[in-house]
């Protein structure tokens, strides 16, 4: 599936919920289900400073694709992180650079990506794109 197809799937999953509490409950559930990040990656270098909720992001570049693992100490943020990983992990730099996480807006949780929210999510998206940009440069240099 393409990034966009996965996003559409998420949007459809959330579309069924009328009540905001159900949406948040699902995010909390996703957060709870998420496998914890390996402790060796839960280090300061991987910490995305988002003020209130902390997000750790680790990546590896394998066969032209970037795989991400991440975690947050806040459950709602963790749920959103899980969705971001579902979309962006295992993609080529090109794919990551050319798609925006529009699903967050469309499932009605836009406020979580606003720069005024100090939850680290926006910073996480930026960081993933920075990695993509860096690897894209490396791969074009090598070619």
């Amino acid at each position, binding site marked *: 599936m393409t990034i966009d197809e996965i996003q559409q799937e998420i949007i459809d999953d959330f579309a069924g919920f009328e009540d905001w509490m159900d949406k948040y*409950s699902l995010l*909390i559930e996703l957060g709870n289900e998420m496998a914890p990040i390996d402790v060796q990656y839960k280090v300061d270098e991987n910490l995305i400073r988002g*003020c*209130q909720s902390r997000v750790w992001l680790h990546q590896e570049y394998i066969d032209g694709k970037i795989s991400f693992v991440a975690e947050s100490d*806040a459950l*709602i*943020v963790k749920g959103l992180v899980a969705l971001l990983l579902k979309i962006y992990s295992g993609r080529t730099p090109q794919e990551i650079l050319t798609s925006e996480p529009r699903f967050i807006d469309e499932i009605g949780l836009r406020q979580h990506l606003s720069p005024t929210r100090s939850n680290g999510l926006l910073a996480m998206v930026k960081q993933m794109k920075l990695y993509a940009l860096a690897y894209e440069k490396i791969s074009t240099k090598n070619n």
Partner: protein
Amino acid sequence: MSFDLLNIRKDFPILDQKVNGKSLVYLDNAATSQRPVQVIERMNEFSLKTNGNIHRATHTFANKTTEAFEQAREIVRSHLNAAETAEIIFTHGTTESINLVAHSFGNAFIHEGDEVIVTEMEHHANIVPWQMMCERKGAKLNVLPFNAKGELSIDLLDGLITEKTKIIAVTHVSNVLGTVNPIATIIEMAHLKNVPVLIDGAQGAPHFQIDVQTLDCDFYAFSGHKLYGPTGSGVLYGKRKWLDQMPPFLGGGEMIDRVTFGKTTFNEIPYKFEAGTPNYVGAIGLAAAISYLESLDHTLVLKHEQNLLQFASEKLKTINGLTIYGEANEKAGVLSFNIEGIHPFDLGTLLDQLGIAVRTGRLCADPIMDHFEVENMVRSSFAFYNTMEEVEVFYQALIRLKAMF
């Protein structure tokens, strides 16, 4: 003078709103309080009819503005019962007031090897300016700790005050723990050893009537925006004997007596410390807020605030897994807590969905977070315009949200 909550709430139309489809419950008063229409109208009227720069011209608007600004100073003086208006300096808020003292008092009186005492429960605004000054001067910052209940370990204070101690800076009310500190005792102990005391009144002034002469504090700092007044306004009260000896903080217009390129002589207090065009609209608004407060029966206001705090504490204590931070015998306005297994950020986000505004995070008090070994807290804080029903709504919301985790 009276205290009629229904009528009082009419003075705060901002409270009568829906947020995320729910009736707003504003419990973030320690961060900033709401302003009554009397304050907003006074500031609007001034801006619509009178604006002119103060102390600088002979035209009518300038004169009227100067008059209003100096009237505001007198209202503050009278509210604090300061000995003279010259001891009232208008600043942009508590932070600037403390920085002013740390800088100017520090320059005049603090030398290498000297000591300054702060407490473990200070807001960063009453730590960092002292730290910066100590670094500049090669002085040492000593810290008075607090105990498990969140009360200052007063018994340790006497031992902490040495011949090198030049000033003690302590908060009146903790913005995290809600503790009302025994500032009169602290001041008395300090004065026995000739050490002056600065009180950070950011959270104290909104709840208590301060008499700086009875209290005998050397400095008292507070912000307008936490006292039902506008942002960007604030006060530093200082005893003349200190202010006269302190060099200016900022240089510029109004604070000078005569400038030549060789040497500048400075104006008298308070102008010496009010460089540049001050936020006179803010000062006028702050004075209007004080007048508003003075129109209420303070005893009843305080009693209602205490009832809110007590009711909230009793209710929240019944919630399983909820820890309250700060259980001092004397508290005011603030109730901070965590619920086991729920990140404050999540709780704050969900409460907002229910129209309830609280503060979450580190509350500008890292040392308190470290003391309790937590990363964040949730803080609810109450003002006299809050109702018991709102506390009940808050409690019910916590119960409901807790079930989601």
